[in-house]
Every structure is written in structure tokens, then in C-alpha cells.
């Protein structure tokens, strides 16, 4: 059978690192990139006799995530131990939540090409992250870094409602933007603060039973996720079409070969022996507590988008792109307010900024300049200080060696020449050097004017004011 004869069923378990200042059960900092084993204490190193104390901010952040995804918040929740041995798990159990998660039964809406749909959120629970093993750099053996051990996570489990890699991509982007908007996670995928376990199965169209699923763990780039899902669907179709059976297993996606590989054999099927953690008391939340959090939730992407359509008259497409990231959205609104030219700011974000982000695989949160600096760039064009072609070069410079656009222009000597005398001098020189074009223009070839302006720009290394050039050429050629 062809691939079209199968229905794809995908569910996601997304882990998001919460941006609390301290870890979930001790007061060590959560910041990324410190030297190995410097953000540790007896508690997160699991020294004998230590006890966990739940960071209340973690509960608050998880409740925020639950409310933003329309979950029901549980007023009676608890922590459970998930027991397994691994060197990055110092207690030999992860404190997580098993049968009483903080949030349940939510949804996220997406707009795939097949039409708007809701993706169910089964649950959101809190848990601690594990440490990290460094395998390669030390010759014999591996070294354990426990800086990340105890960094708070929420796990967001979706219903198996997703039907294509497109839907997965949209769902993830939407989820990511929601978490950014409510400021519970910075969602930096390259640093692993947002990662997804992807469960894929296929079944014949119309079948009621789900097929056997495979799981790809710890995926942290949109591109890999899409590629991996596409590969996995093809692989499963192939296996079934050839009379084989899909094994329930964990797979590893290999970016280089573009294939999935089996990670564990079934013999190792883990029994995590979940049981309530006796070191921690139950989590009881009052109506008032939940209500208070609800009242402090910021404007979410959907509502911002609607506002941009009316308030700023953006196109649906542009509004979608800008509101997909809180950072882009804040950049847009901030810069627009300062320079009073939302149309120009929108154009910069949609075209040049988006292109650079794509080319460099940079996340909007990593944009090295702020809304003030972007507004300044727009103002410099509006005032005629620089041309838009120079502005593009300034923008690149702002990404590469971040500083104020004025400073860049000063240093590079990119200020636009708007002095009539200077412009005239250049125009006369160009006319003298290009008699053929002058003839052409006079013979009615409008295009020749463009060539002449181009020559003048070349002469001034792009600094001449293009409107003035145009006007002056026209006058001289009358």
C-alpha cells in the first residue's frame, strides 16, 4: 500500500526547563554554561542524609503553563519517585509525578493546511532534570556533571492527536511560544531547555486501533523533528508493507545519516517502581492561589495576533510570524512605539531579520539588539541619514558586532550623502563617463536612468541619497 493509505498518529512528550532562579529541591542556581559541578550542593549531589524541599516557584510556573493551555489544575497533587540507575541520576530516582499531576485535560489550537484543530494536552507535571555525562573528552571513562541535576522541568504530554509532521511542527512552535509568553521557560532548544520525545505510529485509514508506536527521545530542533518523523513514517510503512511488525522500542535519530536506530532492546524494559516520595508532603493548592495566578497571566499569542490585525493592520501571515515568538513580538511592539512606523518595523522583522535568523539557526531570543536599536535603524532611514541598502548592511553589523546603529554608521562612514553640491558633482561625472546611456535615455529608454543611478551609487559606495540622485539625473537630462 502507499503511504497515503495509512494514517499517521503522533503524540509528544515535551520537556521544558523552567526559568526559576534556583533548582527544584535545593537553592543551587539553574543558569546554563557554568564549569562542571559548580552549581551543586549536598542535596542535588544526593549526599547521604539530605532531603528535598520543593521550590514553590516551580509549582507556580507549572500552574501558569497549565492555565495557559486550558488545563484543569489539581488542588491535591504529590511527588513520586521514579527509580532507575544511571550515573547522571545521583539519587537513583527522579522525583517526578505519577498518578496525580498538577495539570490535566488541556488543549492547544493549531492551524495546519488541513484546517484549524485542537490538540489535547493529557497532563503537565513537574519533575527534576538529571545531570550530564561527558563521554568523549577524557580518554578512559566518562565524567559526570551534576550542574543540571535538579533543574526544574515540566513535562507536557499531548494526546495522540497529531496526524503529520506539519502538525507536530505547528504544535511545538505554538507550545514554545506560549511558554515564552508566560515566561516560565526560555525554551532555548540548542541548550536543551526545550526537548521532545516523539511517539509515532501508523494505522490503516479508518482503523480504530492504534498501531504499535516507536519513540524518539530528546529531540531538540524543529528541523530534525520533521525529518525524523518523515523518515520514521516511511520506515514503518515499509516494514508493514513487507509483512513485518513494528516493534515497540526507543529510537535514536541520527542527524548525519538521516536515519533512526534502535537504542534499547526490549529485555531492558524498565520497571520504574513509582511510589509516593515520603520525603515530601502533598501539594495542596487553594482556589485563591490558582485564581491569583490566573489573574497575572500575560496576553497570549492568539490574542496578540488579533490585536496586530486591527491595531497595526498587519497581514494574517505577518501577524502569525511575529506573534510566534514573544521576543519577536516584543521587539515589534517596542520598536513600533518608539519610531512610530510599524509598517517598516514589520518589514524588517518579516524579511531581513527572519532571513538572518533562518540562515544562522538563531532563536529570536538570541537576537543581540533590542527594540530601541531597531527603532533607531528605522528612524535613520526615515530621516534620510542612511539609505535602505546601507541599512541592510547596518543590520548585519548589528547581528555580528552588536552596538548602536549610529555608532556603526559613524565608524564605517556610511552616512548618506544628501548635500546637493556633492550629489551634483557625482551626477555630472557619471553623465560624462557614460555618454551611451545618456543617449539611450534621451532615446526613450527609461532603464538607462537606473543604470546611471547605479553607477552613481557605486561611485559613492552606496552612500548617496537615491531619491536625490534620481531627481538630479532627471533634471540634468531634460
Amino acid at each position, binding site marked *: 500500500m502507499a503511504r497515503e493509505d495509512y494514517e499517521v498518529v503522533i503524540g509528544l512528550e515535551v520537556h521544558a526547563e523552567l526559568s526559576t532562579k534556583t533548582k527544584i529541591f535545593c537553592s543551587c542556581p539553574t543558569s546554563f554554561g557554568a564549569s562542571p559541578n559548580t552549581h551543586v550542593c*549536598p542535596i542535588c549531589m544526593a549526599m547521604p542524609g539530605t*532531603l528535598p*524541599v520543593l521550590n514553590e516557584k516551580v509549582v507556580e510556573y507549572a500552574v501558569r503553563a497549565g492555565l495557559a493551555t486550558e488545563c484543569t489544575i489539581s488542588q491535591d497533587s504529590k511527588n513520586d519517585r521514579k527509580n532507575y540507575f544511571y*550515573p547522571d541520576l*545521583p539519587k537513583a530516582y527522579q522525583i517526578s509525578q505519577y498518578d496525580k499531576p498538577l495539570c490535566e485535560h488541556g488543549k492547544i489550537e493549531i492551524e495546519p493546511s488541513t484546517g484549524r484543530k485542537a490538540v489535547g494536552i493529557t497532563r503537565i507535571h513537574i519533575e527534576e532534570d538529571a545531570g550530564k555525562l561527558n563521554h568523549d573528552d577524557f580518554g578512559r571513562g566518562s565524567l559526570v556533571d551534576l550542574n543540571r541535576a535538579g533543574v526544574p522541568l515540566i513535562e507536557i504530554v499531548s494526546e495522540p492527536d497529531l496526524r503529520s509532521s506539519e502538525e507536530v511542527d505547528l504544535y511545538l512552535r505554538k507550545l514554545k511560544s506560549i511558554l515564552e509568553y508566560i515566561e516560565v521557560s526560555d525554551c532555548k532548544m540548542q541548550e536543551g531547555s526545550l526537548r521532545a520525545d516523539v511517539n509515532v505510529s501508523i494505522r490503516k485509514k479508518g482503523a480504530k486501533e492504534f498501531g504499535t508506536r516507536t519513540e524518539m527521545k530528546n529531540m531538540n530542533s524543529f528541523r530534525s523533528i520533521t525529518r525524523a518523523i518523515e523518515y520514521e513514517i516511511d520506515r514503518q510503512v515499509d516494514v508493514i508493507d513487507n509483512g513485518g511488525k513494528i516493534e515497540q522500542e526507543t529510537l535514536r535519530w541520527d542527524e548525519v545519516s538521516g536515519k533512526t536506530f534502535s537504542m534499547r532492546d526490549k529485555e531492558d524494559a524498565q520497571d520504574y*517502581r513509582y*511510589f509516593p516520595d515520603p520525603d515530601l508532603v502533598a501539594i495542596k493548592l487553594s482556589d485563591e492561589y490558582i485564581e491569583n495566578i490566573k489573574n497575572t497571566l500575560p496576553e497570549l499569542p492568539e490574542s496578540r495576533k488579533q490585536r496586530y490585525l486591527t491595531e497595526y493592520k498587519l497581514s494574517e501571515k505577518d501577524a502569525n510570524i511575529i506573534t510566534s515568538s514573544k521576543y519577536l513580538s516584543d521587539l515589534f511592539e517596542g520598536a513600533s512605539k518608539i519610531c512610530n512606523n510599524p509598517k517598516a518595523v514589520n518589514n524588517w522583522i518579516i524579511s531581513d531579520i527572519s532571513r538572518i535568523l533562518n540562515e544562522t539557526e538563531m532563536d529570536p531570543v538570541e537576537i543581540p539588539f533590542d527594540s530601541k536599536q531597531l527603532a533607531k535603524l528605522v528612524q535613520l532611514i526615515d530621516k534620510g541619514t542612511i539609505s535602505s541598502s546601507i541599512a541592510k548592511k547596518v543590520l548585519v553589523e548589528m547581528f555580528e558586532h552588536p552596538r548602536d546603529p549610529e555608532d556603526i554608521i559613524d565608524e564605517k562612514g556610511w552616512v548618506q550623502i544628501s548635500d546637493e553640491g556633492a550629489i551634483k558633482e557625482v551626477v555630472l561625472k557619471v553623465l560624462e563617463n557614460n555618454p551611451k546611456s545618456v543617449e539611450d535615455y534621451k532615446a526613450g529608454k527609461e532603464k538607462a536612468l537606473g543604470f546611471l543611478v547605479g553607477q552613481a551609487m557605486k561611485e559613492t559606495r552606496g552612500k548617496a541619497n537615491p531619491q536625490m540622485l534620481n531627481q538630479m539625473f532627471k533634471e540634468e537630462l531634460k
Partner: protein
Amino acid sequence: MDITELTVHELQEKLKNKELTSYDITKAYVDRIEEKEKDVQAFVTTLENEALEKASKIEEERKSGEVGIFTGIPIGIKDNICTKGVKTTCSSKMLENFVSPYDATVVEKLNKERIINLGKLNMDEFAMGGSTEYSYFKKTRNPWDLNKVPGGSSGGSAAAVAANMVPWALGSDTGGSIRQPASFCGVVGLKPTYGLVSRYGLVAFASSLDQIGPITKDVYDSAMLLNIITGHDERDTTSRNIEKKDYTKALKNDVKGLKIGVPKEFFGEGINEEVKEKLEEAIETYKELGAEIEEFSLDIAKYSLATYYIIACAEASSNLGRFDGIRYGYRAKEFKDLKDLYRKSRSEGFGEEVKRRIILGTYVLSSGYYDAYYKKAQQVRTLVMNEFNKAFQKYDVILTPTSPTVAFDIGSKSNNPLEMYLADICTVSVNIAGLPGISVPCGVDKKGMPIGMQLIGNKFEEETILNAAYTFEQKIKFRENYKPTFRKGEK
């Protein structure tokens, strides 16, 4: 005057009156340890020099100003309570060379009072056992008969107090580990209400049952040590935030009108006749003192032992996972891969009893067995609590033997785990229900071995059982009439 014969409140008097200095006291204990340790084998680590140095320093301070009421009093600490810079071994090969980077909350409290640590006391490995025979290092002897066990798991603590090698000690109690050795060694042992004393820094055996408590020469000392170690601790979310009390104020030497319930199930089959006799005498004493005694049925108690071993082992199997040979503790010399490293380190580092309980606990938490064992045990636990709640609507105190027998011969039960588990039968329900319990000596058997009486109170009503124990103690004057002999009794 033999300094080591004195209780802590007597030492305080002598310090106050300048009859003694901290150095005199500490030196007396150091000498006594020197003399008796070869017979008793109570310590895993002794700190003679450090203790004497500290005592000298404290004497200087005493000369130049005011000091606290416990300043310069020595203590011994069970070796599962973390002490910064001093080994905390849990009497296990696994932690033979482990030095904690921090002090347990109770140790911080002792340090704040300027109490001097004489050393770390022997125990059953990871507090699992009732005879201290399961220590990796040594078998502690009972000072009343060196061929008998001191009980356990806080056997080192109880034996050291009985042998006057420390004036008082800290133990821990998960199923009777303070009260049973106190009973075997003729001293006073108190297990506080779950949540009264911080567990931070107590190496966990079973988190929902463990409590640290005092082992002392008399009840007054017990109340004083409890005063020091109680208090809410933000680092232990199971520690309750309640008002600090002065427990010595509860010692009124008066039990008139006190309602004592005697559960008949604790006097039935399996309880040694001589133990029964002494307990009945104790009941008579209470009657004479004006207490009201009533027999009642605590039928649910018969399920306590099974419930206890399921819950305790389940929690232990998870709590002891961290001893994996990766970050600290014993690591096997040779291993093929990660799994082999785990398997060998844990097989070689843990003793038989610890492994038995880890396996039991792993089994009862496994999928497919969880509901039948762990979940059922939690349900029974609730029923046990309810039964005690009901009993405490009628009685102020529940009176039972601490142990069904007196101290038994070394080696007589160490190969029969089930029989060893039965030694906990009178004490475990107290932990299951999270209640306070105290063991006080109530006499000796024909061979001169001490017998203990257990008084159980309602939650956070330590004052009631302390007063009941104190009043009894004042009446029978056990310490004046009986002393350990350090003899070697026939087997």
C-alpha cells in the same frame, strides 16, 4: 566520685558549682572508653583527642564568661547521623571511608550548645537489624552480659550509655531501634513523634518511619536532650512547625488519674514469662501511684509487623539506590561495564541483611505486586493509625513490653531473619502510626538482664509519656538497684 556514673543533670550541677570542669568530665569519659571499649565495642570512630582539645578550649571560655547550660557536656552519636569532617559509616563497608560534607540538623543543634562529640557509635548496617550484629565493623556487646547482644539497631548508643562510656547518646528509631536496645541495656530510650525532630542529615533507611531520639541514663536527661534536638527545620518538609517546649517542665512525679491502657495482644503468645511478670509488677506500681489502668484490645497491631516490613523495605530499596559506587562510597575494583560496576559495588559493599531488605523492597514495589503489597500496607497503616486514635480518646498512655524478650545471645538469631524480625513486634506499630514511645527499665530477670517497659503517647504528647516514665523511675529507682556487671554469662 566516679564522674561517668553521673547523669547529665547531675553533671550540670557539678559544673555550675565548679566541682567539676568540662575537661574533668571529658577526660573521665575518654579514660572510661579506653578501659571498656575492648569489652563493649560500642564505637566505630572515637574522637578522644578532638574531644579533649575542645574541652580545654571550653574551660578557657568558662573562665572568661558566661556559657550555656550544656556547654562542655560530651555525647556519643549513632553513626548514621552526619557529622562534618568525621566519618559517617552507617556501620557499612559501603561507607567505610565516607566523610559527610555537612552536619545533620541535630548535630548543628548539639554544636550550638557546645556539646562535645566523643565519637560515632556502632549500629546494624544502615540501621537494619535488632542486635547490632549486622555491623560491618564489629559486634557490640551488652554491658550486662558480654555474651549477649545490646539490641539494635542503635546498639552502640545504648551499650555506650549503659557502660558509662558516654553520658548520653543520639540514636535513630525506624521500627524500635532506640527503644529495643535501650530495653536490652537497661537505659532510657525515646522515639519522638514523627516530625518532631528534623531528619536532615540522618542517612535514610525508611523516610516515613525514621526519627532521631535520645538514649540516656534517666528520664530527666531524655527530656533535656529532646529539648535540644526538637524544632522545625526548613530543610525537612516532614518536620512539623510547632511551638518549642521545655519537656523537663512536664516531669511532675505524679500520675494520679492518668489513664493507662494495656493492650492485651502485647501480653500474649511469644512474650517471655519473666518479661510479662515484670510488666505486671509495673502495672501494679502505677496503680499504687494512683493511675487508672484498663486492659483493652488493639487487635490491628498483629498486622503491624508485616505492614512495617513492606513499607520500610520499599522505602529502603529506593533510599539506598544512591549507594551506587559512582560519587562516593565503595566501588568495586574491577568491572566490565556500567552494569557490572553497579552490580559488583552493591553486592560487595552491602551486607546480607541490607541486600535482603533491598530485594524485598524492590519486589513489593514492582509493577504487578505494588497493589497487593505496598498499597495494601499503606491501607493497613491508615487502619493502625485509626485504632490508635480511638485508643487515645480513652487513654493518655498505652503500656506494653518494649521487647518480647531480654537480650539474647550473640549469634543466636543472626542467621534467622524471621526470628530477628519478631523482636520488633512490640515497637513497630508506634512507627507505623508516627507516635512517640519511650522505653524505661522496669526490672531485671533471674539472670540479671534488664527488662524494658514501653509507654506510647498520642502524637506530639511526649510530655505525657515522659512524666509517666519519670514518675515510675522515681518510684522503682532502677539505677540505684541494678548496674551492668560486664560479666561473661554462660551461653
